[in-house]
């Protein structure tokens, strides 16, 4: 089992603390089946000739919180992707989370170096709303642990203001609410992300890992993605186990397959 990155420097009164959902992402991304999928998709091929490597995958986590997931993927890129030369980046709407996540990645990379092991190439964390600042068709792997809890209202997104609010209990509670409160069905933010996926994912290699809870109606979500067209796939690839017959939390993988040639009939 790969070690979980340290987040001991993170202030959890205003940044989401790694929990069961975060750990399910770590377990899923480092599972044998997902390693096989990712290594095949981003493989170096059989040749050792460097010039024949496919380009470095661009891996982005949306809503990094503490950065535990992004730093895990970056630090263990060689094990997960079969190559250390991934480019990693993160986005969070909470500026404190951005700073914490950057630090988490850097600590995890230093630990790899201390062990004489490789790590990915980290570009940085930016503050922003979902994928709004990303160029279209660039992301090869998108990871999203959304605010998925059904709530009566969706908290308003922070907007840019010149004054930085003084730290207060209200401000901290608001920032934390952004990490879990998902509005109707817990899906209001996830719906916006899903709508942006076809544009933001790279055409040939793009895939996404999204965490859902039972109240998000995961079967409906997967069907909706399949309805985008026959090149779109969506499957559950990780699950927290059943509780009263329900899978409480699950990870769905969304990906595009190369369109079938015309003479080939879909199965």
């Amino acid at each position, binding site marked *: 089992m790969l070690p979980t990155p340290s987040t001991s420097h993170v202030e959890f009164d205003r940044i989401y603390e790694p929990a069961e959902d975060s750990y399910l992402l770590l377990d899923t991304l480092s599972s044998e089946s997902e390693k096989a999928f990712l290594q095949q998709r981003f493989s170096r091929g059989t040749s050792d000739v460097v*010039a024949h*490597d496919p380009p470095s995958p661009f891996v982005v986590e949306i809503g990094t919180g503490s950065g535990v997931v992004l730093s895990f993927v970056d630090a263990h890129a060689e094990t997960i992707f079969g190559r250390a*030369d991934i480019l990693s*980046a993160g986005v969070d709407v909470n500026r404190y989370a951005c*700073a914490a996540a950057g630090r988490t990645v850097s600590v995890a990379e230093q630990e790899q170096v201390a062990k004489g092991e490789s790590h990915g190439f980290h*570009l940085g964390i*930016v*503050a922003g709303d979902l994928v709004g600042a990303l160029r279209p068709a660039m992301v090869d792997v998108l990871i999203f642990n959304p605010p998925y809890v059904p709530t009566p209202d969706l908290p308003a*997104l922070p907007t*840019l203001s010149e004054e930085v609010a003084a730290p207060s209990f209200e401000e901290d509670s608001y920032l934390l609410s952004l990490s879990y409160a998902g509005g109707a069905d817990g899906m209001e933010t996830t719906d916006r992300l899903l709508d942006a996926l076809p544009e933001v994912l790279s055409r040939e290699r793009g895939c996404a890992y999204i965490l859902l809870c039972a109240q998000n109606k995961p079967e409906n979500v997967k069907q909706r993605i399949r309805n985008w067209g026959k090149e779109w796939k969506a499957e559950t690839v990780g699950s927290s186990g059943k509780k009263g017959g329900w899978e409480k939390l699950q990870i769905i993988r969304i990906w595009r397959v190369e369109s079938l040639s015309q003479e080939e009939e879909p199965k």
Partner: protein
Amino acid sequence: MKVLTLNFLTCAVKACKSTSAAFPLHPKDCELVSDTLEANPKLLFNILPRIDWNALIITASELGFPTLPPTPPTPEQLENDPKMMQELHTLLLETQISEGSLVCANCSHEYRVKEGIANFLLPNHLV
């Protein structure tokens, strides 16, 4: 944030995203810091094919880096040109933007960078 990040970012204003002027964002009054990293030619070779080279030429020139050639070098060319290898290593792998702004040429909005974190949250009137 690494300078290379600019190759993946665009203006976050919806109306800008379809315009070519929204990419690349233009650094303004930027403070740069440099990490010292070991040479990693393989990483450079595997990054180069996915870079928008024309955008990188603009970014490099705006940040005061040596002028880049009009087309990206091949791995073979790089291996035979240690000077260019070093320059690309410095620009793409080592250099970070720590403070300053990133400006959209379409809407003129300036995204502030503070302590290495660019802020793409929009003011109310642009959301």
